[in-house]
């Protein structure tokens, strides 16, 4: 429930469409997603994309990849690592204020890190 609250606040404060917290193996921990979006598939996709991004940065010897975002014609999908144990995925509309969104995500990450211990 505590994770759900963090996600709900994030969606509300940042003007996002949805958010999902995923374990590194791709299983959803909590989510606030719009109707019609499959929680499990978003979760699995988030973990997979971040993991592949990490593989690229591992080739560069540049440490761990923290955040990756994809812009589409209908909006943004932003994946951020939470410690080494989870991935936070956020869906935002195309007109979202990216700066504000990224700041709110960082705030939510801090809360989640505390919750995850």
């Amino acid at each position: 429930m505590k994770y759900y609250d963090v996600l709900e606040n994030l969606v509300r404060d940042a003007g996002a469409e949805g958010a999902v917290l995923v374990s590194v193996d791709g299983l959803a921990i909590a989510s606030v997603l719009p109707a019609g979006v499959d929680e499990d598939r978003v979760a699995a996709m988030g973990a997979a994309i971040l993991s592949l991004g990490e593989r690229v940065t591992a080739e560069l010897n540049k440490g761990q990849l923290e955040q990756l975002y994809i812009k589409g014609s209908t909006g943004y999908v932003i994946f951020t690592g939470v410690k080494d144990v989870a991935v936070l995925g956020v869906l935002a509309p195309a007109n979202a204020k990216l700066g504000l969104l990224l700041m709110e995500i960082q705030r939510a990450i801090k809360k989640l890190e505390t919750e995850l211990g």
Partner: protein
Amino acid sequence: MELPEELLDLINKAYRDANLYYIGIFIKNKEIVSRTSSKSDKLSISFGRLIERSLELNEILPNFKEEFLFSEGKDYSLFVYYVEEELSIGMIHIGKPNFSMLKIVGLDLAKEIKKYKDQLKEIYLQEVQTITIKEETSEEATQVKQEVFKQDENRDFFKDEINELEKVLSFKEYELKEDITQPSLEDILTTQKEEELSYEPPPLEEILTAKTEEEKLEPPSLEQIISDRGSVSEDSLINTEEILEKIKNEFVREIGPFGMLLFKKKKEEYFKTRNVTKFEILKFIQLLAEEISVEKRRNEFIENAKSLLINL
């Protein structure tokens, strides 16, 4: 088919002007041409997979239509510009992250690259066909040289596979000998009685001839086995679907629930043009293993999946 000089110039120019560490043009997940300071082949492979997976977002979020992907660290930025559905530009910049610069470079290059999209797709198709032919008839394969595809890597890949196949096949020989259904006590007694009743020792000459013939029997070479693999494997493929299902379970266990979708997709793609033979399943296991990023888990998967084949 050769890449147009103009296209190579464009890539070189972007590489120099933006002081990039890597730039590559991709069709689906295949790097068609690149320029990089990296010595590792794995970079383009991992980059290709990242692009492929990001394109799958459209399946979850209808009409998402990717425009770009961006990621940055303290001293690097990673950028993908999606030119068209299957055509993308991947870039890596080492140094202070600079999103705007990469976006402009991507945008400019995309405009120019669109002119060459048909040629790039043709090269991609040629390469895919070449690889398919090579897998089917290793010696007669057409040698189309493109710097993009790492032939040496393929050779190493087959070397490992052949070694693994050798192990599996030799193990199977023992398995088959032992795999005789255990007769019941009644059967043993009846057979024993019949044998006792009908037993007549063969003449010494016969025993000696049989022994010589036995000595002549040599196990087939690995090459023979591989060349016959179509027919041999078809005979031995009794429960391939069951085995594939078990491999899927192993894969999902290592990669998570997304593995189900990925397995289905990879299976459809891989066995579209190939027979479901033991040899092909072995190669399919390797293909799946490449999707597992953690080495320990990848090795675990390969080991477990191959042990399933031994039971075939």
